[in-house]
């Protein structure tokens, strides 16, 4: 429909007759005097992240690196999860004995749907909003694996947590520009307030989100 394209562009240009030909987009000033960085101490930022994630009804644990495998074992046991989907590059030492890790070697949707849960890392955490960011990078796998299982167990290292949304957007910038890989922001489990404004946790995405914050 190239004629539609030409016509729309013509309409746009006709509509903008008041814009002088020499005006460039960057001639319109954008005042970016909002906060770009959270200057609070690291410990405070991580604590806020834990608090905000929990505020969304996600289950949060703060642990030491040496406790990681043990905590994963306990979480899976509580959840009665035996067969956990994992990205192919998940560190071996994360997976405790007794839990079957099913690496995503191009699993079908039906296979993903049948898993008891999924265990991944993440790209970033945002303290201000309690958000976990996945960018298909290391220890995360493709988008479908964190979407179909009903239980998502996610490992966030303290040094991955940033303070504010602008910090996260800046950190993701290189990845967007270089690879264009998909990015997902997750803030608590799936939810709806469509019925009489009552919040219901869990509609289509994982209904349980459990987050391990590792020092």
């Amino acid at each position: 429909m190239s004629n539609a394209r030409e016509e729309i562009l013509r309409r746009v240009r006709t509509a903008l007759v008041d814009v002088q030909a020499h005006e460039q987009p960057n001639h319109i000033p954008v005042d970016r005097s909002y906060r770009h960085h959270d200057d609070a101490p690291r410990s405070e930022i991580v604590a806020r992240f834990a608090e905000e994630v929990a505020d969304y009804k996600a289950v949060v644990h703060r642990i030491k690196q040496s406790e990681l495998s043990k905590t994963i074992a306990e979480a899976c046991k509580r959840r009665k999860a035996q067969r956990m989907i994992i990205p192919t590059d998940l560190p071996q030492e994360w997976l405790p004995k007794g839990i079957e890790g099913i690496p995503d070697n191009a699993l079908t949707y039906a296979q993903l749907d049948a898993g008891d849960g999924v265990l991944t890392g993440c790209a970033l955490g945002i303290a201000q909003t309690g958000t976990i960011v996945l960018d298909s990078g290391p220890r995360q796998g493709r988008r479908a694996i964190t979407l179909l299982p009903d239980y998502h167990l996610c490992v966030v290292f303290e040094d991955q947590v940033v303070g504010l949304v602008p910090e996260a957007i800046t950190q993701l910038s290189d990845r967007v520009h270089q690879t264009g890989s998909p990015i997902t922001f997750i803030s608590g489990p799936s939810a709806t307030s469509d019925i009489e404004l009552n919040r219901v946790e869990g509609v289509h995405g994982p209904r349980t989100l459990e987050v391990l914050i590792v020092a």
Partner: protein
Amino acid sequence: MRRSSVPIELKASFPESAKTSLRDTQLRRNLGKATQTIRGKRAAVVNEMPDWENLREAGRAIKQRVMRHLDHYLLELETAVQRAGGQVHWARDAADANRIVAEIARNHASKEVIKVKSLTTDEIKMNEALGELGIHALETDLAELIIQLADESSSHILVPAIHKNRAEIRELFMRKLGVEELSDEPAALAEVARRHLRDKFLNTKVAISGANFAVAETGTICVVESEGNGRMCVTLPEVLVSVMGIEKIIPTWQDYEVFLQLLPRSSTGERMNPYSSFWTSVTPGDGPQEFHLVLLDNGRTQVLADEMGRQTLYCIRCSACLNVCPVYERVGGYAYNSVYPGPIGAILTPQLRGLENAESLPYASSLCGACYDVCPVKINIPEVLIHLRGRVVRERQERQGVRHNLYPEDLAMQMLTQIFLDQFQFERVQRLGRLGQEPLARGGFIGNLPGPLAGWTAMRDMNVIPEQTFREWWRSRYE
């Protein structure tokens, strides 16, 4: 032959529809509760942001930049999407857009497509258009599903089924989805939707979405949502079609740092909505391997052409202005006869459709200005409303030629113009009025004006002209 879409329909005027809506006490109760709840949540999360005003100003300026250079950004976006392996289509109107989407579905022999809630596709009546061609468009958002099953239309941008209570939804699900036993607990109702749609998500080939934002620089598109149906639709099918209005562009990836703070807090009153998906055309081994972006005009360039009205296109569809509007809170969404209700609808709909097709909407406001205060991109809605009211009158005068001189309101205005032009004339009329008001005045007020003036006092009392006017008092000081 029936056309696949009807861009302009004859609609009831706002006052006519408002009368019907006001009689629906259930709707008013639900809306009152909903708007009050969301208002409170929004205020709480906005108040915790020390730089909220800076973010609003940045959001406004970024959108202003985009609108003044929309041709530049549209071409940049097209190049970026194509570079990343996506296809770009241009649609002048609803018919164009619906034809493009139908062709894509047909190319994949799809009789059913899944959809993410999208106002833009509601605006162009895509579900109906596809339906006429034998393609079923299945809504996957819970509220949209409820409305689709009930064969109704939305009453709120954000919570479209706000007019239905849980008992009604339970009854609907039992009847339409063949569920035998079901409680009216929201969690149980949501579970039914999950089971019903899961199979569709896993097996449907083509999905259709809108777009909250599209970055011109990189072609990265964003859909924000709560339930996960959006993630399902943009991740699982083989083919993804996103339909977006040409005004949804933002220049750079970095600009998300502004809008991802403004939108969730203004919209649902959350610090961040549960899920936001960003994708850049196609990624091998992850998600749909065929991506189409449909750029829709459908009246937007008309809005762009009005220098004052242009700011209407900054709108990011958060619905904050609906929730604070005293008019919307009482009449609800249906009275606006548009997929865009509330204050933003009162300025957007007439400009998209042409003023003559919705000329009562710019008057659907008390001009209290609450909408401007909460707008995350600082659209001066009252200013645009007044501007459009002026245009309504001018355009009617132009259409009617000299006949407009006989229109009662115009007659009255012409008379008032003459009176206000001359100080002595004005004072003479005041003195006359003081004499004439005697039989009508009760305790300093006039409750019922006679004849053609009765309309003025139908809703309000009028102050009487006082014994001594300000001018008379001023002069008396020197006497």
